[in-house]
Protein backbone atom coordinates (compact mmCIF):
# COMPACT_ATOMS: atom_id res chain seq x y z
CA UNK A 1 0.00 0.00 0.00
CA UNK A 2 1.46 3.34 -1.00
CA UNK A 3 2.28 5.94 1.67
CA UNK A 4 -0.42 8.32 0.39
CA UNK A 5 -3.09 5.60 0.30
CA UNK A 6 -2.09 4.41 3.76
CA UNK A 7 -2.56 7.95 5.06
CA UNK A 8 -5.97 8.27 3.41
CA UNK A 9 -7.11 5.01 4.99
CA UNK A 10 -6.09 6.30 8.43
CA UNK A 11 -8.00 9.57 7.82
CA UNK A 12 -11.05 7.60 6.72
CA UNK A 13 -11.03 5.24 9.72
CA UNK A 14 -10.61 8.22 12.09
CA UNK A 15 -13.50 10.09 10.45
CA UNK A 16 -15.86 7.08 10.50
CA UNK A 17 -15.16 6.29 14.16
CA UNK A 18 -15.55 9.96 15.14
CA UNK A 19 -18.90 10.22 13.39
CA UNK A 20 -20.18 7.01 15.03
CA UNK A 21 -19.19 8.29 18.50
CA UNK A 22 -20.68 11.72 17.75
CA UNK A 23 -24.03 10.23 16.70
CA UNK A 24 -24.10 7.90 19.72
CA UNK A 25 -23.50 10.77 22.16
CA UNK A 26 -26.20 13.09 20.83
CA UNK A 27 -28.92 10.98 19.28
CA UNK A 28 -31.44 8.60 20.80
CA UNK A 29 -31.10 4.98 19.71
CA UNK A 30 -29.27 1.76 20.39
CA UNK A 31 -25.79 2.23 19.06
CA UNK A 32 -24.27 -1.20 19.54
CA UNK A 33 -21.55 -0.33 16.99
CA UNK A 34 -20.19 2.38 19.29
CA UNK A 35 -20.15 -0.04 22.22
CA UNK A 36 -18.35 -2.58 20.06
CA UNK A 37 -15.76 0.03 19.06
CA UNK A 38 -15.12 0.87 22.70
CA UNK A 39 -14.48 -2.82 23.38
CA UNK A 40 -12.02 -2.84 20.46
CA UNK A 41 -10.28 0.18 21.96
CA UNK A 42 -9.81 -1.71 25.24
CA UNK A 43 -8.46 -4.75 23.40
CA UNK A 44 -6.06 -2.59 21.34
CA UNK A 45 -4.90 -0.81 24.50
CA UNK A 46 -4.12 -4.17 26.11
CA UNK A 47 -2.23 -5.35 23.05
CA UNK A 48 -0.26 -2.08 23.22
CA UNK A 49 0.48 -2.80 26.88
CA UNK A 50 1.88 -6.20 25.89
CA UNK A 51 4.03 -4.55 23.22
CA UNK A 52 5.17 -2.03 25.82
CA UNK A 53 6.21 -4.86 28.13
CA UNK A 54 8.24 -6.44 25.33
CA UNK A 55 9.88 -3.08 24.63
CA UNK A 56 10.64 -2.61 28.32
CA UNK A 57 12.29 -6.03 28.56
CA UNK A 58 14.27 -5.46 25.36
CA UNK A 59 15.57 -2.12 26.63
CA UNK A 60 16.72 -3.56 29.94
CA UNK A 61 18.28 -6.64 28.34
CA UNK A 62 20.30 -4.23 26.16
CA UNK A 63 21.30 -2.28 29.29
CA UNK A 64 22.69 -5.49 30.79
CA UNK A 65 24.40 -6.59 27.58
CA UNK A 66 26.12 -3.20 27.24
CA UNK A 67 26.80 -2.90 30.99
CA UNK A 68 25.35 0.62 30.90
CA UNK A 69 26.97 2.53 33.76
CA UNK A 70 24.74 3.15 36.75
CA UNK A 71 21.77 1.36 35.21
CA UNK A 72 22.53 -2.25 34.38
CA UNK A 73 22.32 -3.57 37.95
CA UNK A 74 18.82 -2.06 38.28
CA UNK A 75 17.92 -3.64 34.94
CA UNK A 76 18.74 -7.09 36.39
CA UNK A 77 16.39 -6.40 39.31
CA UNK A 78 13.70 -5.22 36.95
CA UNK A 79 13.86 -8.37 34.84
CA UNK A 80 13.90 -10.68 37.88
CA UNK A 81 10.88 -8.95 39.43
CA UNK A 82 9.09 -8.79 36.09
CA UNK A 83 9.45 -12.55 35.65
CA UNK A 84 8.39 -13.28 39.26
CA UNK A 85 5.31 -11.03 39.03
CA UNK A 86 4.36 -12.37 35.62
CA UNK A 87 4.68 -16.05 36.57
CA UNK A 88 3.03 -15.69 39.99
CA UNK A 89 0.16 -13.69 38.47
CA UNK A 90 -0.23 -16.28 35.75
CA UNK A 91 -0.25 -19.08 38.37
CA UNK A 92 -2.97 -17.23 40.32
CA UNK A 93 -5.02 -16.77 37.18
CA UNK A 94 -4.62 -20.45 36.23
CA UNK A 95 -5.69 -21.59 39.71
CA UNK A 96 -8.61 -19.28 40.51
CA UNK A 97 -8.95 -16.87 37.55
CA UNK A 98 -7.52 -14.14 39.80
CA UNK A 99 -3.82 -13.15 39.82
CA UNK A 100 -4.08 -11.83 43.39
CA UNK A 101 -5.07 -15.30 44.63
CA UNK A 102 -1.40 -16.25 44.34
CA UNK A 103 0.29 -15.44 47.69
CA UNK A 104 3.63 -14.40 46.11
CA UNK A 105 1.92 -12.02 43.69
CA UNK A 106 -0.34 -10.70 46.40
CA UNK A 107 2.50 -10.13 48.85
CA UNK A 108 4.73 -8.39 46.28
CA UNK A 109 1.90 -6.13 45.16
CA UNK A 110 0.44 -5.39 48.58
CA UNK A 111 3.58 -4.76 50.58
CA UNK A 112 6.66 -3.69 48.58
CA UNK A 113 4.90 -2.13 45.56
CA UNK A 114 2.05 -0.31 47.33
CA UNK A 115 4.28 0.87 50.19
CA UNK A 116 6.92 2.23 47.82
CA UNK A 117 4.24 3.92 45.73
CA UNK A 118 2.72 5.59 48.76
CA UNK A 119 6.14 6.69 49.99
CA UNK A 120 6.75 8.38 46.66
CA UNK A 121 3.35 10.03 46.80
CA UNK A 122 4.05 11.29 50.31
CA UNK A 123 7.21 13.15 49.22
CA UNK A 124 4.99 15.23 46.95
CA UNK A 125 4.19 17.31 50.05
CA UNK A 126 7.81 18.47 50.29
CA UNK A 127 8.00 19.18 46.58
CA UNK A 128 4.80 21.25 46.76
CA UNK A 129 6.32 23.17 49.65
CA UNK A 130 9.50 24.01 47.75
CA UNK A 131 7.50 24.86 44.59
CA UNK A 132 5.26 27.15 46.64
CA UNK A 133 8.32 28.83 48.15
CA UNK A 134 9.61 29.59 44.64
CA UNK A 135 6.19 30.81 43.42
CA UNK A 136 5.56 32.96 46.50
CA UNK A 137 8.69 35.08 46.25
CA UNK A 138 7.35 38.62 45.85
CA UNK A 139 9.38 39.60 42.76
CA UNK A 140 6.66 41.77 41.23
CA UNK A 141 3.13 42.96 41.99
CA UNK A 142 1.50 39.79 40.59
CA UNK A 143 3.71 37.52 42.70
CA UNK A 144 3.06 39.73 45.75
CA UNK A 145 -0.72 39.38 45.28
CA UNK A 146 -0.26 35.62 44.89
CA UNK A 147 1.76 35.57 48.10
CA UNK A 148 -0.95 37.44 50.03
CA UNK A 149 -3.75 35.20 48.71
CA UNK A 150 -1.64 32.11 49.36
CA UNK A 151 -0.98 33.14 52.96
CA UNK A 152 -4.71 33.54 53.61
CA UNK A 153 -5.46 30.11 52.10
CA UNK A 154 -2.64 28.43 54.07
CA UNK A 155 -3.79 30.03 57.32
CA UNK A 156 -7.38 29.02 56.54
CA UNK A 157 -6.37 25.38 56.18
CA UNK A 158 -4.10 25.56 59.24
CA UNK A 159 -6.37 25.90 62.28
CA UNK A 160 -4.00 28.43 63.81
CA UNK A 161 -5.30 30.99 61.28
CA UNK A 162 -8.64 31.31 63.05
CA UNK A 163 -6.86 31.77 66.40
CA UNK A 164 -4.78 34.64 65.00
CA UNK A 165 -7.82 36.46 63.57
CA UNK A 166 -11.36 35.17 62.97
CA UNK A 167 -11.50 36.97 59.59
CA UNK A 168 -8.67 34.89 58.09
CA UNK A 169 -10.77 31.79 57.30
CA UNK A 170 -13.53 34.00 55.87
CA UNK A 171 -11.12 35.67 53.46
CA UNK A 172 -9.33 32.38 52.73
CA UNK A 173 -12.60 30.64 51.90
CA UNK A 174 -13.60 33.55 49.68
CA UNK A 175 -10.40 33.04 47.67
CA UNK A 176 -11.11 29.30 47.45
CA UNK A 177 -14.83 29.51 46.63
CA UNK A 178 -15.03 32.69 44.55
CA UNK A 179 -11.61 34.23 43.90
CA UNK A 180 -10.09 31.35 41.95
CA UNK A 181 -13.20 29.71 40.48
CA UNK A 182 -13.77 32.14 37.56
CA UNK A 183 -10.15 31.85 36.49
CA UNK A 184 -10.19 28.06 36.66
CA UNK A 185 -13.49 27.86 34.76
CA UNK A 186 -12.05 30.18 32.14
CA UNK A 187 -9.15 27.75 31.64
CA UNK A 188 -11.61 24.87 31.50
CA UNK A 189 -13.67 26.52 28.77
CA UNK A 190 -10.73 27.59 26.60
CA UNK A 191 -9.12 24.15 26.99
CA UNK A 192 -12.40 22.57 25.88
CA UNK A 193 -12.46 24.77 22.76
CA UNK A 194 -8.83 23.92 22.08
CA UNK A 195 -9.74 20.24 22.29
CA UNK A 196 -12.76 20.75 20.01
CA UNK A 197 -10.62 22.44 17.39
CA UNK A 198 -7.94 19.78 17.65
CA UNK A 199 -10.55 17.06 17.18
CA UNK A 200 -12.07 18.87 14.22
CA UNK A 201 -8.70 19.14 12.48
CA UNK A 202 -8.03 15.45 13.21
CA UNK A 203 -11.46 14.57 11.80
CA UNK A 204 -10.66 16.40 8.55
CA UNK A 205 -7.15 14.92 8.39
CA UNK A 206 -5.58 18.36 8.85
CA UNK A 207 -3.89 17.86 12.22
CA UNK A 208 -0.53 16.59 11.09
CA UNK A 209 0.77 15.60 14.53
CA UNK A 210 -2.25 13.36 15.04
CA UNK A 211 -1.00 11.16 12.21
CA UNK A 212 2.67 11.06 13.20
CA UNK A 213 3.71 13.84 10.83
CA UNK A 214 5.81 16.78 11.97
CA UNK A 215 5.63 20.54 11.43
CA UNK A 216 7.49 21.85 8.42
CA UNK A 217 7.73 18.39 6.85
Amino acid at each position, binding site marked *: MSEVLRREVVYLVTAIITIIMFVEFFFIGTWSVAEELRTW*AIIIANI*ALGLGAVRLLAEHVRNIQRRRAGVWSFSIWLIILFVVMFLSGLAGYAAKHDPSSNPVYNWLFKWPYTSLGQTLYAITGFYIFSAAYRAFRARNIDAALLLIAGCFVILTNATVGEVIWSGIPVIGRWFLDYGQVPGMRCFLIVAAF*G*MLAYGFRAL*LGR*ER*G*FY*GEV*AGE
Partner: protein
Amino acid sequence: MAIIISGRGMALVILVLSYILFYVFMYLGRKGREIPVRTLPPMAAIPEGIGRAAEMGRPVMFTPGIAGDLNDPTQGPQVLAAISILGYIARECAKTGVKLDVFMPIPTALPLTEETLRTAYMAEGKPEEFSPDMIHFIAEQSPYLTAVLGYFQRERPATNFLIGGFYYESVVMGEAGNAIGAFQIGGTANIHQMPFLVATCDYMLLAEELYAAGASISKDPDILGCLRGEDIMKFILVALMIIGFLLGLARVDALIKALGW
Protein backbone atom coordinates in the same frame (compact mmCIF):
# COMPACT_ATOMS: atom_id res chain seq x y z
CA MET B 1 -40.64 12.71 18.30
CA ALA B 2 -37.43 13.68 20.02
CA ILE B 3 -34.30 12.36 18.35
CA ILE B 4 -31.76 14.22 20.48
CA ILE B 5 -30.93 12.99 23.97
CA SER B 6 -32.44 15.32 26.55
CA GLY B 7 -29.96 17.87 27.96
CA ARG B 8 -27.51 17.54 25.04
CA GLY B 9 -29.35 19.64 22.44
CA MET B 10 -27.61 22.93 23.19
CA ALA B 11 -24.23 21.20 23.36
CA LEU B 12 -24.92 19.89 19.85
CA VAL B 13 -25.83 23.40 18.64
CA ILE B 14 -22.62 24.86 20.13
CA LEU B 15 -20.55 22.02 18.66
CA VAL B 16 -22.03 22.42 15.18
CA LEU B 17 -21.67 26.21 15.34
CA SER B 18 -18.02 25.80 16.42
CA TYR B 19 -17.33 23.38 13.56
CA ILE B 20 -18.91 25.74 11.03
CA LEU B 21 -16.79 28.64 12.31
CA PHE B 22 -13.63 26.51 12.33
CA TYR B 23 -14.29 25.39 8.77
CA VAL B 24 -15.09 28.88 7.45
CA PHE B 25 -11.90 30.36 8.92
CA MET B 26 -9.80 27.38 7.81
CA TYR B 27 -11.16 27.96 4.31
CA LEU B 28 -10.43 31.70 4.47
CA GLY B 29 -6.93 30.98 5.81
CA ARG B 30 -6.25 28.64 2.90
CA LYS B 31 -7.52 31.32 0.49
CA GLY B 32 -4.80 33.61 1.81
CA ARG B 33 -6.62 35.68 4.40
CA GLU B 34 -4.10 36.76 7.00
CA ILE B 35 -4.91 35.57 10.53
CA PRO B 36 -2.48 37.16 12.95
CA VAL B 37 -1.40 35.08 15.94
CA ARG B 38 0.94 36.05 18.73
CA THR B 39 4.12 34.04 19.14
CA LEU B 40 3.84 31.72 22.10
CA PRO B 41 6.90 32.35 24.29
CA PRO B 42 7.21 28.63 25.29
CA MET B 43 7.38 27.60 21.64
CA ALA B 44 9.90 30.33 20.87
CA ALA B 45 11.96 29.06 23.82
CA ILE B 46 12.22 25.48 22.48
CA PRO B 47 15.25 26.19 20.21
CA GLU B 48 16.81 28.13 23.10
CA GLY B 49 16.41 25.13 25.41
CA ILE B 50 17.84 22.72 22.86
CA GLY B 51 20.69 25.12 22.07
CA ARG B 52 21.47 25.19 25.79
CA ALA B 53 21.65 21.38 25.82
CA ALA B 54 23.96 21.45 22.79
CA GLU B 55 26.31 23.92 24.50
CA MET B 56 26.35 21.91 27.72
CA GLY B 57 26.69 18.55 25.94
CA ARG B 58 23.76 17.14 27.87
CA PRO B 59 20.52 15.47 26.73
CA VAL B 60 17.01 16.83 26.44
CA MET B 61 14.12 15.04 28.16
CA PHE B 62 10.47 14.97 27.04
CA THR B 63 7.53 13.37 28.81
CA PRO B 64 3.75 13.74 28.31
CA GLY B 65 2.68 12.71 31.85
CA ILE B 66 0.57 9.74 32.88
CA ALA B 67 -2.86 11.28 33.53
CA GLY B 68 -4.68 9.13 30.99
CA ASP B 69 -4.62 6.84 28.02
CA LEU B 70 -5.20 7.93 24.43
CA ASN B 71 -8.83 6.79 24.63
CA ASP B 72 -9.43 8.99 27.67
CA PRO B 73 -11.64 11.85 26.40
CA THR B 74 -9.89 14.62 28.34
CA GLN B 75 -6.31 13.35 28.64
CA GLY B 76 -5.94 11.68 25.23
CA PRO B 77 -6.10 14.90 23.18
CA GLN B 78 -3.49 16.48 25.46
CA VAL B 79 -1.12 13.59 24.86
CA LEU B 80 -1.71 13.80 21.11
CA ALA B 81 -1.08 17.55 21.13
CA ALA B 82 2.09 16.93 23.16
CA ILE B 83 3.31 14.39 20.61
CA SER B 84 2.76 17.02 17.88
CA ILE B 85 5.08 19.34 19.82
CA LEU B 86 7.52 16.45 20.32
CA GLY B 87 7.83 16.27 16.52
CA TYR B 88 9.12 19.86 16.48
CA ILE B 89 11.44 19.23 19.45
CA ALA B 90 12.84 16.13 17.73
CA ARG B 91 13.55 18.11 14.56
CA GLU B 92 15.43 20.74 16.54
CA CYS B 93 17.38 18.01 18.36
CA ALA B 94 18.21 16.32 15.05
CA LYS B 95 19.44 19.64 13.63
CA THR B 96 21.76 20.31 16.53
CA GLY B 97 22.78 16.72 17.27
CA VAL B 98 21.40 16.83 20.81
CA LYS B 99 20.44 13.53 22.44
CA LEU B 100 16.68 13.28 23.06
CA ASP B 101 15.19 10.97 25.67
CA VAL B 102 11.43 10.45 25.69
CA PHE B 103 9.74 8.93 28.74
CA MET B 104 6.44 7.58 27.47
CA PRO B 105 4.25 5.93 30.11
CA ILE B 106 1.23 5.45 27.82
CA PRO B 107 1.40 2.16 25.88
CA THR B 108 -1.16 3.16 23.24
CA ALA B 109 0.90 6.24 22.39
CA LEU B 110 4.12 4.30 21.81
CA PRO B 111 3.65 3.58 18.07
CA LEU B 112 2.68 7.20 17.32
CA THR B 113 5.65 8.50 19.33
CA GLU B 114 8.04 6.22 17.47
CA GLU B 115 6.55 7.22 14.12
CA THR B 116 6.75 10.93 14.99
CA LEU B 117 10.41 10.70 16.03
CA ARG B 118 11.35 8.61 12.99
CA THR B 119 9.61 11.12 10.69
CA ALA B 120 11.31 14.07 12.41
CA TYR B 121 14.79 12.59 12.01
CA MET B 122 14.06 11.64 8.40
CA ALA B 123 12.80 15.16 7.70
CA GLU B 124 16.16 16.49 8.90
CA GLY B 125 18.02 14.02 6.69
CA LYS B 126 19.38 12.06 9.67
CA PRO B 127 17.34 8.85 9.81
CA GLU B 128 20.37 6.94 11.11
CA GLU B 129 20.34 9.05 14.29
CA PHE B 130 16.88 7.83 15.24
CA SER B 131 16.77 4.84 17.53
CA PRO B 132 13.77 3.24 19.28
CA ASP B 133 16.01 3.26 22.39
CA MET B 134 15.29 7.00 22.66
CA ILE B 135 11.81 6.09 23.90
CA HIS B 136 11.65 4.68 27.41
CA PHE B 137 8.41 2.95 28.29
CA ILE B 138 7.51 2.62 31.96
CA ALA B 139 3.92 1.82 32.90
CA GLU B 140 2.28 2.88 36.20
CA GLN B 141 2.75 6.22 37.90
CA SER B 142 5.21 5.44 40.71
CA PRO B 143 7.66 3.38 38.63
CA TYR B 144 7.50 5.99 35.86
CA LEU B 145 8.18 8.80 38.28
CA THR B 146 11.02 6.92 39.95
CA ALA B 147 12.60 6.19 36.56
CA VAL B 148 12.45 9.88 35.58
CA LEU B 149 13.92 11.01 38.91
CA GLY B 150 16.74 8.46 38.57
CA TYR B 151 17.36 9.65 35.01
CA PHE B 152 17.58 13.27 36.21
CA GLN B 153 20.25 12.33 38.74
CA ARG B 154 22.30 10.17 36.37
CA GLU B 155 22.05 12.09 33.09
CA ARG B 156 21.33 15.61 34.39
CA PRO B 157 19.42 16.77 31.27
CA ALA B 158 19.95 20.41 30.31
CA THR B 159 16.33 20.93 29.25
CA ASN B 160 13.11 19.18 30.24
CA PHE B 161 9.83 19.30 28.39
CA LEU B 162 6.91 18.41 30.65
CA ILE B 163 4.08 18.74 28.14
CA GLY B 164 0.84 16.75 28.17
CA GLY B 165 -1.69 15.41 30.67
CA PHE B 166 -0.20 15.35 34.15
CA TYR B 167 -1.21 14.33 37.63
CA TYR B 168 0.89 14.69 40.75
CA GLU B 169 4.08 13.74 38.89
CA SER B 170 4.17 17.29 37.49
CA VAL B 171 5.31 18.91 40.73
CA VAL B 172 7.78 16.13 41.58
CA MET B 173 9.42 16.19 38.15
CA GLY B 174 9.30 19.98 37.98
CA GLU B 175 11.02 20.41 41.34
CA ALA B 176 13.53 17.62 40.69
CA GLY B 177 14.32 19.30 37.36
CA ASN B 178 14.86 22.59 39.15
CA ALA B 179 17.18 20.88 41.63
CA ILE B 180 19.50 19.80 38.78
CA GLY B 181 19.33 23.27 37.19
CA ALA B 182 17.44 22.22 34.08
CA PHE B 183 15.71 24.70 31.81
CA GLN B 184 12.07 23.61 31.77
CA ILE B 185 9.11 24.11 29.49
CA GLY B 186 5.77 22.81 30.74
CA GLY B 187 2.31 22.55 29.28
CA THR B 188 -1.00 21.06 30.31
CA ALA B 189 -4.74 21.58 30.08
CA ASN B 190 -5.31 19.88 33.46
CA ILE B 191 -6.28 22.84 35.62
CA HIS B 192 -5.34 21.01 38.84
CA GLN B 193 -1.73 20.71 37.67
CA MET B 194 -1.27 24.14 36.08
CA PRO B 195 -0.13 25.88 39.29
CA PHE B 196 2.61 23.30 39.81
CA LEU B 197 3.96 23.61 36.30
CA VAL B 198 3.74 27.41 36.43
CA ALA B 199 5.73 27.38 39.68
CA THR B 200 8.39 24.93 38.51
CA CYS B 201 8.86 25.66 34.79
CA ASP B 202 10.54 28.57 33.01
CA TYR B 203 7.83 28.66 30.33
CA MET B 204 4.36 27.22 30.29
CA LEU B 205 1.72 26.36 27.66
CA LEU B 206 -1.57 26.98 29.42
CA ALA B 207 -4.76 25.13 28.47
CA GLU B 208 -5.74 26.02 24.90
CA GLU B 209 -2.14 27.04 24.08
CA LEU B 210 -1.22 23.36 24.23
CA TYR B 211 -3.48 22.67 21.25
CA ALA B 212 -2.56 25.87 19.44
CA ALA B 213 1.20 25.43 19.78
CA GLY B 214 1.39 24.08 16.24
CA ALA B 215 0.20 27.44 14.87
CA SER B 216 3.12 29.18 16.51
CA ILE B 217 5.55 26.83 14.77
CA SER B 218 4.11 26.28 11.33
CA LYS B 219 1.66 29.19 10.77
CA ASP B 220 -0.55 26.47 9.28
CA PRO B 221 -3.74 28.16 7.96
CA ASP B 222 -5.85 25.28 9.27
CA ILE B 223 -4.67 25.77 12.85
CA LEU B 224 -4.82 29.57 12.55
CA GLY B 225 -8.36 29.35 11.16
CA CYS B 226 -9.44 27.15 14.07
CA LEU B 227 -7.90 29.64 16.50
CA ARG B 228 -9.95 32.47 15.02
CA GLY B 229 -13.07 30.28 15.23
CA GLU B 230 -12.30 29.51 18.88
CA ASP B 231 -11.94 33.23 19.64
CA ILE B 232 -15.35 33.98 18.15
CA MET B 233 -16.94 31.14 20.11
CA LYS B 234 -15.37 32.50 23.30
CA PHE B 235 -16.95 35.91 22.61
CA ILE B 236 -20.31 34.23 22.06
CA LEU B 237 -20.00 32.36 25.36
CA VAL B 238 -18.97 35.50 27.24
CA ALA B 239 -21.99 37.29 25.75
CA LEU B 240 -24.23 34.39 26.86
CA MET B 241 -22.79 34.61 30.37
CA ILE B 242 -23.46 38.35 30.58
CA ILE B 243 -26.99 37.94 29.23
CA GLY B 244 -27.58 35.05 31.65
CA PHE B 245 -26.31 37.17 34.53
CA LEU B 246 -28.64 40.04 33.64
CA LEU B 247 -31.61 37.71 33.11
CA GLY B 248 -30.82 36.05 36.44
CA LEU B 249 -30.98 39.45 38.14
CA ALA B 250 -34.42 39.95 36.55
CA ARG B 251 -35.40 36.42 37.69
CA VAL B 252 -35.95 35.25 34.08
CA ASP B 253 -34.85 31.66 33.57
CA ALA B 254 -35.52 31.32 29.82
CA LEU B 255 -31.82 31.12 28.96
CA ILE B 256 -31.13 28.47 31.59
CA LYS B 257 -34.00 26.38 30.24
CA ALA B 258 -32.73 26.83 26.67
CA LEU B 259 -29.20 25.75 27.67
CA GLY B 260 -30.65 22.67 29.37
CA TRP B 261 -32.52 21.58 26.21
